[in-house]
């Protein structure tokens, strides 16, 4: 197996773990952790594809930097949403949040 395939397989492993976590977790914080795992896998995949093929390597690195920035913005917003939800419902358990209106 070539180096590129190995790196992409590791990124896919992160994707699988993240998807497993996002379905299996029962709180919003646990889901946020799983989303971060998946975003890391995406970044690793982009960098491996840019560094090990004929593609523009600089573009790949800058793209991963942008993914990191988006991950930071997303974590900020999700933190705010978690605070609002836990203030309104008293919990962040998903089974308590699944009704739209009572």
């Amino acid at each position, binding site marked *: 197996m070539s180096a590129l395939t190995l790196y992409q397989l590791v990124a*896919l492993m*992160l994707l699988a773990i993240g998807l497993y976590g996002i379905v299996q977790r*029962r709180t919003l914080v646990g889901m946020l952790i799983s989303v971060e*795992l998946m975003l890391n896998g995406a970044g690793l995949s982009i960098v491996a594809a840019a560094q*090990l093929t004929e593609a523009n390597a600089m573009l790949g690195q800058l793209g991963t930097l942008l993914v990191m920035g988006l991950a930071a913005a997303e*974590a900020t917003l999700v933190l705010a949403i978690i605070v609002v939800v836990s203030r309104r419902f008293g919990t962040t358990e998903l089974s308590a949040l699944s009704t739209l209106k009572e």
Partner: protein
Amino acid sequence: MEILAKLAFTIYAVIILGGGLVAVSAKSLVRSLVGLIVTFFGVSGMYLLLNTPFLAFMQMLIYVGAVCVLVFFAVMLTRADGQGEEAAPITAKRRLYALAAGLLPAGGLALVLVKHPGISKILPEEVPLPALGSGLLEQYSLNFELISLVLLVAMSGAVLLTWERKEKK
């Protein structure tokens, strides 16, 4: 890849796998966060192997330094400790669904990847840091500005969401 690089790759892959498994399966969310940090360090090592030391540094600075602290605040502000909502046992059906949700898309992608591998270079390219900086400020300056705008909007949105109105209480 040389033997040493293969060895380092295996070690980093094991670190990523172990950290990821702890992150999704630990009962306490604080332990899960520690697993997440371990995974970030493993991915950072992969960036070093890919000859992108700047990204490895940024990975530690942004993910370990900023995102993990944010997630830790989320853990602290909600009741997400060992006695919290995650501590109850998971039913086998839910675990099965979660496994299917994780393995089916990733397995399909892996099948395509192994069957049609891309042409890989032996050695990763090396991009000097000044080239990255000038790319960020010249060729891709619009993206650079847009990401700062997104960060600004996200932060002001977060402040606005958590603003407690005094007159309503």
